[in-house]
Every structure is written in structure tokens, then in C-alpha cells.
């Protein structure tokens, strides 16, 4: 419940408080958001499977975000930032889809 509250609060704050993102972090924000989404879907699936562990969730959330940002950072340094971020988004998208499929099977039994 607190988790849902936090999400809603975050959206509201992000929309209306208009916080300023440091310029150096700007390119990493979209990738980090996608990575975090992946972690959230994974957590949701684990919750429905009955094996949710908040420690695992926290670690996977943070590591996902950090690794995704790191990959983009590395890609930028190597001059293939655009391609690497596309790759990261594709991989995370696939994972999100498979997690969503598992969730769907739990919810709809189909």
C-alpha cells in the first residue's frame, strides 16, 4: 500500500514540482526509468508468485538502474551511446513483456 502511495506521490511531485535534473544526468533518466519499470514488473510477478522479498526487490531495482545508466554512460564514451541505449531498451522491453505475460497468467488464469 505504501508502495502504491509512493508511486502516485512521485508522479504528482514530478509533474507539478518541476524538479530540475542535473544536466549530466539527463541522458540517463529515460534508461533508468525503463530499468526501474523492469524491476517493478519483476517484483509484481514475484508478489503474485508468493515469493516476493523486499530485499531482493530493492537490490534488483537499484542494480537495474545503476547498470542501465552505466551501460549508457559507457556507450557514450565509446561513441555508440545511441545504439547501446536502444539495445538496453530492447532487452528491458522483452523482460517487461515476459513479466507482464506471467502476471497476466496469474490474474486471468490464461
Amino acid at each position, binding site marked *: 500500500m505504501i508502495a502504491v502511495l509512493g508511486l502516485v506521490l512521485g508522479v504528482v511531485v*514530478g509533474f507539478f514540482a518541476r524538479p530540475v535534473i542535473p544536466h549530466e544526468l539527463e541522458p540517463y533518466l529515460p534508461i533508468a526509468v525503463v530499468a526501474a519499470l523492469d524491476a517493478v514488473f519483476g517484483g509484481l510477478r514475484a508478489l503474485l508468485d508468493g515469493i516476493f522479498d523486499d530485499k531482493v526487490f530493492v537490490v534488483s531495482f537499484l542494480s537495474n538502474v545503476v547498470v542501465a545508466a552505466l551501460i549508457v554512460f559507457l556507450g*557514450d564514451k565509446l561513441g555508440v551511446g545511441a545504439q547501446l541505449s536502444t539495445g538496453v531498451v530492447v532487452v528491458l522491453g522483452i523482460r517487461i513483456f515476459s513479466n507482464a505475460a506471467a502476471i497476466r497468467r496469474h490474474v486471468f488464469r490464461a
Partner: protein
Amino acid sequence: MWPPRVSRAQLVVGVLLFALGAGLAIQVRTNTESDPLRGARESDLVRVLDELEQRTQRLEAEKHRLEVSRDQLESSNNRAEEARQQTDQRAQVLGILAGTVKATGPGITLTINDPQGNVRPDMLLDTLQELRAAGAEAIQINQVRVVASTWFDEPVQGQITIDGQRVTAPYVFKVIGNPQDLQPALNIPGGVIRTLEKKQAQAVVVPSQQVLVDALRAPTAPDYARSAPGAGNG
């Protein structure tokens, strides 16, 4: 689930999701704001910058070209204006000489009364020559403008014609020139006025600062004479 049981784990998850929501919202808002350069990659920005610089250079070059052409047009316009003014001025001068425009200025009015009918064309011609020698610039006799080709005749005794037009006494010369030159030239001993007086004709000279020569002559183009190319700028 209500009231929520507050544990450390729940709080941490809530904070993380708060961060996720905020990031999501910021990103969505950033992309919705119509600034395509926000969040663009460095290589894209460099490309955009390059394009802008090239465009700037092209526009600068075009600006320079247009400025040069503008300067050229301005100077040629000035030259054309100057040439037109010179032409106008020349047309005025030539028009006064050719008798096609009115002329005004200081001068004298010479009136010759001839009650006896003794004045002959050659006397009028002598008067005219005397005036020309004294620097007269524009002359009319009665209503006839005097020009370079003016001629005098007396087809019938006592009927004087100038350029084919009949003129009768009193003969009024309107002359533009320096009055201080014209008046003495007519009054010299043995000069025009003395000669006329011998024939019982009275001549009166009135100097004026404003004499109007308003008789006109139609401009005629010469049939044979053409300006010779390269023979001066006249």
C-alpha cells in the same frame, strides 16, 4: 491492507517507487515540452550545431552578396540621379538659348517709339547686335523670341517682319542680361539710341531686376546636322 503496516522494507520500496514515479513524470513532461534538443544525444547535437553553422555561413554569404548588390544599386541610383540633374540643367540652359523655355532675371526693357515710320530692319538688327555684344542672354522683340537664326525683313515698305512675323511700333525689347552693361552699350555716343534719335524715333531704356522673357519658340530638330560622336561632351 488498511491501515498499512509500516515496516522498513515497505518504506524503502515506497521511496524507490516514489523515485520511479518522479523520474517517469519528469521524463514524460520533458518529452511533451516541444523542445527537440532536450535529451538529444551529444552526436545529434554536434550534427545540429554543424548544420546551424553551415546555414549561418550560407546566410552570411548571402547577406554579404545582397549588401554588395544593394550598394551597387544605391551608387548607380545616385549616378543616375546626378546624370538626370545635369541633363535637366543642360536642357534649361539650351532651352533658354533655343527659346523653348521662358526666362527671367535682371535686365532692361528698351521701347522704341517710331511715330514717323523711319525705323528700318537694319536699325533693329544693329540694336540687337549691340545688345548681344553687351552680353544679353535672352531677348524678345514684341512677341517674337530672338534666337540664333532670327532674321529681319521688310517685304513691303514700313512693314517689318521678324522671323516672318509682322511687328509694329512701338518696338519693345525685353532683354535679360547685366543692366549695368546693357544700358551704357545702348547709350554710347554715336550708338544705337543716338542713331535712332536722328531718325526721330524715341528710345527709352528702363533697367529692372525682374524682366520676363515669355515669348516661346517651338523646338525644331535639325534635318541634316547630327552631333558628331566624340566631338566633346556638348
